[in-house]
C-alpha cells in the first residue's frame, strides 16, 4: 500500500517526462488492434450480408432452374429437404431506362409471401393483386439502376414487346448474389403479370428452392435433383456460391488485414520491448536510487509493468473502439459486429503480448543493482580491425566512431534492426499489393481483360452491330462471344462457360501456364475451375451446355478475376451452333490510347442508342478500398518503426552523453559529434530498412500469388513493387530516421556537458 503511493508518483512523473513516446506506444498498439478487429470482423463473415439475409428470409439452400414446370413434388421428396420454394415461373426480360439496358429475371410469386425463401421488403410493400403492374425489385438491382419506389419499370420481353410496370417495393433475398456481379438482376411480379409480359411458356423457366435440414448436404441434394430432372435442368446454385459471391472482396481484405495485423503485432511487441528495455537502461541509475530509498526488486518490476502495461492496455482499449468504428464506417453499417469470442480473444491476445513484451525488460529493470554511485556505462570494446582499417583509409572519423557505437550494445542493436526491418517488410508487401493493383489497371490483358468494352447488339442484327464496331476508329479488334451456363461433369453446379473469339482468331488471353486455345475443343480455365473440377492442364473435361455435352481439353490457365476463377473460356466455334449464333456480345479491344468512354459514346451515337455498350470493370476498381487499407497500415507500421527509432536514438544519446565532452576534448567539432551520434542510429536503421525491403520484395509476390491461388483468381498476379518505388521508400525511411535522430543529437552536441560527472 505504502509502495503504491510512491510508485504512483514515480509513474506519473515518468509519463510526464516522455509524453511523446507514451503516445506513440498507445497509438501503435491501438492501430494494430484496430487492424486485427477489422480483419476478424471481415473474416468472420459478420460483414457478409448473406448470413443475416438467409436467416431473415428463411432461405433455401439449393436453387434449381429447369425447363418447364419441374416436378416440385418429387424434389420435395428428396432426403434432407425440409421445405420447398416454388416452383416459380421466371422469364428473362430487359429493363430499359433511358437507353440503358439491364438483364433482369422476372419471377412470378404469389401475393402472399411463401414460407420458404420469402424476400424481405425493405421499402414499399410486397406484391398486391390490387396492383397488377406493381413490381418488387431486388435491392442491389434497384441501387445499381437507380430505381426508387414508384419509378417506372419498363421491360422488353424476348418478343420485343414493351411493358410499363412500376416499382412497388424493394426487397432483399439470399437466393442470389448482388447485381451487377451476379446477373441477371431479380424482380418479382404476380403470376398474372408475368403471363402478360411473357405469354410463351417456352421462353421461361421454372425455379425451385430447396431448404435443407443440413446445409452441408447441399451438394448431395443438388445431385439428386439433377438425376431426377435429367436434361430439363438448366442451372443449379447452392448457398455456398451465393455466400461466396457476397463475400469475395471482404475476405481478401480481411486476409490482408489479418496478415498485417499479426505481423504488426509482433512488430509492435518488439517496439514495446525495445522501448521499455531502452527506458530501463536509461533509468538504471534512478532504479538504483529508488532501491537505496527502499523500493524492492518486485516493486520496481511491478511499477514498470504497470506503467508500460497500462499504456499497452490503453492502446488495446482504443483499438477495440477503433475497430468497431472502422468496421462501421467502411462497411456502411451493413453486417453484424464481431461476436464476443473473437473480440475477447484479440483483446486478451494483444494484451498478453504487450504484457510479455513489457515484463521481460521490467524484470531486468528490477534486477538493477542497488548501488547507484557510478552511472552504468555501455560495454566497452576495442576498435575492431574493420574500424582501424576505416580510419586508415581516412574515412571520416565520425562515421567510424558512430559505426562502432552502433553495435556496442548487441541486444538493443538487434532489437532496433529487427524493429525497423519488420515494419519495412510489411510496408514492402503493402507496396507489392499496390503494384499488383496497378498491374491490373496498366495491363488488363494479363487478367483476361484485353477488351475494354463489351457491346451487346440488343435489337440490332449481328451483322449491323459488327459493321458499326468495325467502322469505329478506336477499335483495334473485336471478338464475338457468348456466356453460357455449363453444368460441371457431376452436374451439381453451374460454372460460367465463356465462348469468346474463334480458334482462328482467339481472344488474346495471356496464359500464365500452358498456352491459349488455338483449336476447336481447346479451352483455357481459371484456377478456381481447375480446383473445382480437380483437373490440370492437358486434361479433358466434359460439361453440359444447354443440354448438349461438350468435351474440352484444357490447354492453359489464365488469370481469372470473375466468379472466383470458376470460368472456362474457349472459342465460339467449339460451341454448338444453336448456342453460338448469333453472338451474345462483342468484346472490343481498343487501339492504344483510345479512350473507352469516348469510344463508347461514339458507338452509342452511331447506333442511335440501340447498341448496349458497357465498360469492363477492372478488378482493381473493385479492390480500390485495399489502397486505403494499405495507406492506413503503412501509417501504423511507420509509427512502430518510429517508436523503435526514438528508443534507439535516446539510448545512443544516453550512452554517449558522457562521451561527448571527451569527444569534443579530442578535437571533434560539434558537427562531427552530431554525425557520430546520428551514424550510430542511422546505421542500424539502414540495415533494418535494407533487410526489410529485401525480405518484403522477395516474399510479396509469392504471398499475393498464394492469395490469388486460394481465391481462385490464380497465381501469376503478384508483382514486386517497382525498383524506383522501393528506392524512394527506402530513401524516405532512412531520411526520416536520420532526421528524427538528428534533432536530439544536434541538441546534445551543442550542449555543454561537464566532464566532472564522469
Amino acid at each position, binding site marked *: 500500500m*505504502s509502495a503504491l503511493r510512491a510508485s504512483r*508518483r514515480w509513474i506519473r512523473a515518468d509519463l510526464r517526462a516522455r509524453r511523446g513516446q507514451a503516445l506513440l506506444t498507445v497509438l501503435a498498439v491501438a492501430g494494430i488492434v484496430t487492424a486485427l478487429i477489422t480483419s476478424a470482423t471481415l473474416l468472420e463473415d459478420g460483414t457478409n450480408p448473406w448470413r443475416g439475409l438467409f436467416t431473415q428470409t428463411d432461405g433455401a439452400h439449393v436453387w434449381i432452374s429447369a425447363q418447364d414446370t419441374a416436378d416440385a413434388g418429387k424434389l420435395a421428396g428428396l432426403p434432407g429437404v425440409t421445405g420447398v420454394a416454388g416452383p416459380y415461373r421466371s422469364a428473362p426480360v430487359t429493363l430499359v431506362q433511358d437507353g440503358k439496358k439491364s438483364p433482369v429475371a422476372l419471377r412470378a410469386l404469389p401475393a402472399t409471401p411463401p414460407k420458404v425463401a420469402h424476400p424481405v421488403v425493405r421499402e414499399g410493400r410486397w406484391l398486391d393483386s390490387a396492383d397488377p403492374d406493381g413490381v418488387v425489385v431486388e435491392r442491389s438491382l434497384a441501387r445499381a439502376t437507380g430505381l426508387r419506389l414508384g419509378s417506372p419499370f419498363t421491360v422488353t420481353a424476348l418478343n420485343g414487346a414493351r411493358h410499363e410496370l412500376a416499382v412497388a417495393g424493394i426487397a432483399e433475398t439470399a437466393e442470389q448474389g448482388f447485381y451487377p456481379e451476379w446477373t441477371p438482376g431479380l424482380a418479382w411480379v404476380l403470376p398474372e403479370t408475368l403471363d402478360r409480359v411473357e405469354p410463351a411458356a417456352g421462353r421461361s423457366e421454372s425455379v425451385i428452392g430447396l431448404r435443407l435440414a443440413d446445409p452441408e448436404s447441399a451438394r448431395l441434394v443438388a445431385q439428386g435433383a439433377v438425376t431426377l430432372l435429367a436434361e430439363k435442368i438448366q442451372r443449379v446454385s447452392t448457398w455456398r456460391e451465393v455466400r461466396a459471391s457476397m463475400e469475395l472482396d471482404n475476405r481478401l481484405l480481411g486476409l490482408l488485414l489479418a496478415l498485417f495485423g499479426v505481423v504488426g503485432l509482433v512488430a509492435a511487441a518488439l517496439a514495446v520491448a525495445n522501448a521499455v528495455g531502452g527506458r530501463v537502461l536509461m533509468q538504471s541509475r534512478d532504479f538504483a536510487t529508488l532501491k537505496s530509498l527502499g523500493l524492492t526488486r518486485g516493486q520496481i518490476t511491478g511499477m514498470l509493468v504497470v506503467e508500460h502495461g497500462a499504456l499497452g492496455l490503453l492502446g488495446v482499449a482504443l483499438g477495440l473502439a477503433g475497430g468497431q468504428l472502422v468496421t462501421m464506417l467502411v462497411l456502411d453499417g451493413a453486417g453484424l459486429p464481431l461476436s464476443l469470442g473473437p473480440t475477447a480473444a484479440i483483446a486478451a491476445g494483444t494484451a498478453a503480448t504487450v504484457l510479455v513484451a513489457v515484463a521481460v525488460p521490467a524484470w531486468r529493470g528490477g534486477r538493477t543493482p542497488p548501488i*547507484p554511485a557510478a552511472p552504468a556505462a555501455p560495454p566497452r570494446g576495442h576498435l575492431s580491425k574493420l574500424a582501424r582499417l576505416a580510419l586508415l583509409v581516412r574515412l571520416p572519423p565520425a562515421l567510424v566512431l558512430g559505426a562502432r557505437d552502433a553495435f556496442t550494445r548487441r541486444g538493443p542493436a538487434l532489437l532496433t534492426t529487427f524493429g525497423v526491418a519488420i515494419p519495412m517488410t510489411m510496408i514492402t508487401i503493402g507496396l507489392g499489393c499496390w503494384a499488383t493493383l496497378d498491374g491490373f489497371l496498366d495491363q488488363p490483358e494479363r487478367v483476361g481483360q484485353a477488351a475494354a468494352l463489351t457491346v451487346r447488339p440488343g435489337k440490332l442484327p449481328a451483322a449491323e452491330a459488327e459493321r458499326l464496331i468495325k467502322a469505329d476508329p478506336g477499335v483495334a479488334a473485336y471478338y464475338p462471344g457468348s456466356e453460357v451456363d455449363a453444368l460441371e461433369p457431376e452436374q451439381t453446379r453451374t460454372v460460367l462457360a465463356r465462348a469468346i473469339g474463334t480458334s482462328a482468331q482467339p481472344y488474346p488471353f495471356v496464359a500464365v501456364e500452358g498456352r491459349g486455345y488455338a483449336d476447336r475443343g481447346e479451352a483455357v480455365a481459371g484456377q478456381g475451375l481447375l480446383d473445382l473440377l480437380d483437373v490440370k492442364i492437358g486434361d479433358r473435361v466434359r460439361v453440359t451446355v444447354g443440354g448438349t455435352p461438350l468435351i474440352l481439353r484444357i490447354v492453359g490457365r489464365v488469370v481469372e478475376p470473375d466468379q472466383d476463377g470458376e470460368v472456362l473460356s474457349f472459342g465460339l466455334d467449339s460451341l454448338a451452333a444453336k448456342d453460338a449464333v448469333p453472338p451474345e456480345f462483342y468484346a472490343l479491344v481498343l487501339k492504344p490510347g483510345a479512350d473507352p468512354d469516348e469510344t463508347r459514346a461514339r458507338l452509342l451515337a452511331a447506333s442511335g442508342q440501340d447498341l448496349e455498350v458497357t465498360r469492363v470493370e477492372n478488378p482493381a476498381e473493385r479492390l480500390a478500398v485495399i489502397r486505403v487499407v494499405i495507406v492506413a497500415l503503412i501509417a501504423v507500421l511507420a509509427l512502430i518503426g518510429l517508436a523503435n527509432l526514438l528508443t534507439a536514438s535516446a539510448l545512443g544519446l544516453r550512452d554517449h552523453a558522457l562521451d561527448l565532452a571527451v569527444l569534443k576534448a579530442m578535437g571533434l567539432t560539434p558537427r562531427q559529434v552530431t554525425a557520430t551520434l546520428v551514424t550510430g542510429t542511422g546505421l542500424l536503421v539502414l540495415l533494418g530498412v535494407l533487410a526489410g525491403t529485401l525480405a518484403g520484395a522477395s516474399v510479396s509476390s509469392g504471398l499475393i500469388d498464394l492469395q490469388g491461388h486460394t481465391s481462385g483468381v490464380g497465381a501469376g498476379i503478384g508483382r514486386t513493387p517497382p525498383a524506383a518505388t522501393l528506392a524512394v521508400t527506402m530513401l524516405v525511411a532512412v531520411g526520416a530516421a536520420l532526421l528524427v535522430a538528428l534533432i536530439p543529437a544536434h541538441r546534445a552536441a551543442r550542449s555543454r556537458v561537464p566532464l566532472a560527472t564522469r
Partner: protein
Amino acid sequence: MSGPEPVVRTVNLVKIYQTGGVPVTAVDGVDLRVDPGEFVAIMGPSGSGKSTLVHMLGGLDTRTSGEIWLDGKRVDTLSESAWAVLRRDKVGFVFQFFNLVANMTVADNVELPALLSGATPRQARERREYLLGALGLAERADASPAQLAGGEQQRVALARALANKPSLLLADEPTGNLDSRNTRDVLRLLGEVHRDGQTIIMVTHDARVASLADRVVSLLDGQIVDDGAIPRPVRRPRGGAGDVVELRS
C-alpha cells in the same frame, strides 16, 4: 564492549569481488562499532574499500562473510527485498552524484521515502516542507533536479535521506562532486544534523572534510589501520580547512 546499544556493529566483515575470475578482496575483516549520535568519517585512498563498506552497511551490496548488526538486529542475512524494506525506516543515503530521480520534482524526491514508509501524502508533505525549509530550499520545491546547482542538489539529497528520521545516515563522498563553497554548505548541514543527534557514517578521502567528524576510521586495503576520535581542541585553522571549521562554530 559495554555502553549503549550500538547503531551499527560489524564482526569480521569481508567482501570479495570476483572480477574476471580473479578474486579481489575489497573489505578484509572489518570490526566496526558505531554508537548512537556518533559522526564517523571513513577515510582511505582510492580502492581501499571504504565505499564497499558503506554500501554493505546499507544493504546495497552483499557481504561475503562476517556479520552486520543494525540497531541490535542481525541484518547481513536479509534478502535484497527485506533490506529494501529495512532501509525505508532505518537508513538514509547520500551519494556523490546526488542521485535525485531526474523525472520527479524536488518535492517529490523528498516525499518519496516518507510515502514509501507508509506516511500519508499529508504527513509526507509536511515533513518535506519542514526539511526543505530548514535546508533553505523551500522555494525550489517545484523545480526539477536538473534546474538546481550541484550544491542545491546535494542539499535536496540530504533532505531526502533525512525524510524518515533514519537511525543511520550513510554518506558516500557527499562533497566529492562539489566546489568549496557548496562543500562548506553541505558540511555545515551535516554538522547541524549531527548536533541534533543523528548518527552519521561518511566516506571521504578529504582530510579537511573528515576533520568535521568525531572519529576517523582509516582503511587501507580493506582493513582498518587507524581508528581514533578527533580531539575537539586540536583544530589548526589553516588554509581552506580553516574555512570549514570556522563555519562550524
